[in-house]
């Protein structure tokens, strides 16, 4: 019988095509929507993770107590060994070293004497290692205003407003005056490769981004780093992923008596992000729920419409003696098939769209007229695919389509044979 029904569906486009398209589009929207909402909800968290907190962050205990001052005299040492161990112990986490530092940026005139000077806050991150994702992670390339990305030793990015204030720019030399890890004076020359926008006035007014090795060199921090950020391979923060990591880490690395022993903080534990993490979950759930309900209503309606569309056909089938129950049953079977087919197609398209948006993101800079593009304000909206996206579509896609058909089908039982021929005449 299934074969027969399929044949019918294939041959009668009005029976199959339109409902299928409606189901598929609906499911696609639902799946994509979920991915999109999830993407938006976690975006703020991930932005903080990428820029500042990591999904987990390793630093010395003493450093973590004074985290807001970026106290590099309390930085981690023997970082390469520590990172090697971390990589072995937690292969699913990418570990990246960062150094935050403060200092003065001094711009020389043609005689090499100070022309202008300004206080700066700096971030050292791995820009040059092959395979390093740091530049992309901070959205640096897209935030470039002038010049280009640093591609060789000693090249840095300055925030655009800062470089204007200091009257410097790409291909010009600047000197960092800061303090070394052990408190000495650090003087180091950099060449400005480009300027970036952060989208946060404070940072725009005085930020320098340099390669980690250069910073280590400049601040006498060989094999040292203020912070090691751990970023989950999944790309997203989850308490469930973080908890065992922290437990395992504490067992192995933490030493209560040594203030320079490494400690690990989850994203949730930093900067009051915990409530936001919780909220993003429940908000995501609420929005998905509303959307699925709406979707179900639409597909229910589509089921009803499908039944009505075939009013005439069913009349004929009744007239030639087909059992009402049988017609009802075949209609439901058909709707199950349509529902499944539509859901599968829709889910595939929805996931595809979400995947595109997860991988490439949607560039909204056109809408914001580029005014707000910046490191701290990514102008690319990304979706996020989670496991439920693979099956969530079946709720509206199959359940609602079938429900709609079932409700519409009840009409069959109300029809009177005597009137059938009259209807057929027209």
């Amino acid at each position, binding site marked *: 019988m299934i074969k027969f029904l399929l044949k019918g569906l294939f041959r009668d486009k009005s029976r199959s095509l339109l409902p299928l398209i409606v189901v598929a589009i609906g499911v696609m929207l639902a799946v994509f929507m979920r991915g999109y909402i999830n993407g938006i909800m976690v975006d703020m968290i991930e932005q903080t993770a990428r820029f500042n907190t990591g999904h987990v962050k390793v630093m010395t205990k*003493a450093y973590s107590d004074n985290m807001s001052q970026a106290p590099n*005299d*309390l930085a981690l040492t023997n970082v390469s060994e520590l990172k090697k161990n971390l990589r072995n112990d937690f292969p699913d986490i990418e570990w990246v070293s960062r150094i935050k530092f403060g200092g*003065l940026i*001094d711009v*020389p005139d043609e005689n*090499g*004497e*100070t022309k202008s000077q300004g206080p700066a806050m700096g971030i050292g991150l791995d820009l040059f290692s092959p395979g390093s994702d740091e530049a992309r992670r901070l959205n640096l390339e897209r935030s470039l205003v002038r010049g280009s990305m640093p591609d060789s030793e000693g090249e840095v990015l300055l925030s655009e407003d800062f470089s204007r204030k200091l009257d410097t720019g790409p291909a010009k030399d600047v*000197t960092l*005056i800061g*303090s*070394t890890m*052990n*408190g*000495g*004076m650090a*003087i*180091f*020359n950099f060449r400005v490769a480009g300027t970036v926008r952060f989208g946060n006035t404070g940072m725009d007014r005085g930020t320098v981004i340099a390669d980690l090795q250069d910073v280590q060199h400049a601040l*006498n921090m060989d094999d040292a780093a203020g912070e090691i950020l751990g970023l989950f391979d999944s790309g997203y923060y989850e308490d469930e992923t973080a908890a065992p990591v922290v437990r395992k880490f504490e067992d192995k690395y933490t030493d209560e008596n040594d203030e*320079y022993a490494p400690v690990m903080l989850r994203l949730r534990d930093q900067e009051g992000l915990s409530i936001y993490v919780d909220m993003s979950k429940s908000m995501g759930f609420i929005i998905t729920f509303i959307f699925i309900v709406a979707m179900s209503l639409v597909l229910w309606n589509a089921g009803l419409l499908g039944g009505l569309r075939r009013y005439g056909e069913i009349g004929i089938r009744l007239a030639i003696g087909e059992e009402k129950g049988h017609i009802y049953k075949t209609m439901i079977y058909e709707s199950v098939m349509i529902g499944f087919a539509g859901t599968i197609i829709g889910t595939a398209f929805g996931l595809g769209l979400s995947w595109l948006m997860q991988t490439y993101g949607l560039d909204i800079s056109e809408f914001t007229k580029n005014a707000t593009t910046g490191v701290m304000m990514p102008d690319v909206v990304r979706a996020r695919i989670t496991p439920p996206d693979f099956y969530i579509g079946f709720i509206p896609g199959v359940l609602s389509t079938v429900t709609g058909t079932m409700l519409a089908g009840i009409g069959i039982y109300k029809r009177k044979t005597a009137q059938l021929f009259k209807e057929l005449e027209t």
Partner: protein
Amino acid sequence: MKKVIVILLSVFSVAAYAQPTADEIINRVDKNMSAENQVVESQMTIHGRRASRTITSVSYTVGDKKSFTEYLSPPREEGTKMLKLEDQLWIYSPTTDRIIQISGHMLRQSVMGSDLSYEDMMDDRKLTDVYSAELTGNEEIDGRQTWVLELEATVPDIAYASRKIWIDRERYVPLKEELFAKSGQLLKRSIMSDITRVDGRWYPMVIVYKDMMKQGEGTEFKITDIKFNQDIPEYIFSKAALKQ
């Protein structure tokens, strides 16, 4: 009546101890400590929270207005030079080949991470010109008798509103100095020790500076070699010499 007592007392004290006035003491100290010029090799040990490090340098000083310092070690600081002329200060760093003028707020930074700020080094006015001194007592420090002088600022543009100096009564060398805020809060303390006779002068070979507000053990400044009245070529006190 009061006046009489003061006069009596002072006459009495001069007679008994040959006690000089505060200004006289300071002048004696000045005479003992300063020379036409001096060349000092030193090591400065900075005690950090985590580790200590030692920086060696050689300084050439002429009078109070001109001074030139070259850092010798560790390798990181080697070749870094500092030139002070009147009230200006430049630093040359060989790795960057830049001469940077330390001015404004940068003067308030610490020198090489020590408990001394550039500004502490810069103020070269004679103590008697900017403070009014008063002899307030006698104390014993490490078995040496000292005069205790209290100095109050007489000019407005000065970093420390008051100071307290303990001076060895026999050798005219300060053994201890404390710097105070306007409110009287103790800000910095330096303790001199290892008083040695060099070319007929008594000189403290070790000075420990401590910023009293910060935790830590402070900065130890140790003279490894000191020579007075040398032939110092004039050209080293120029910006051009920094780059050489």
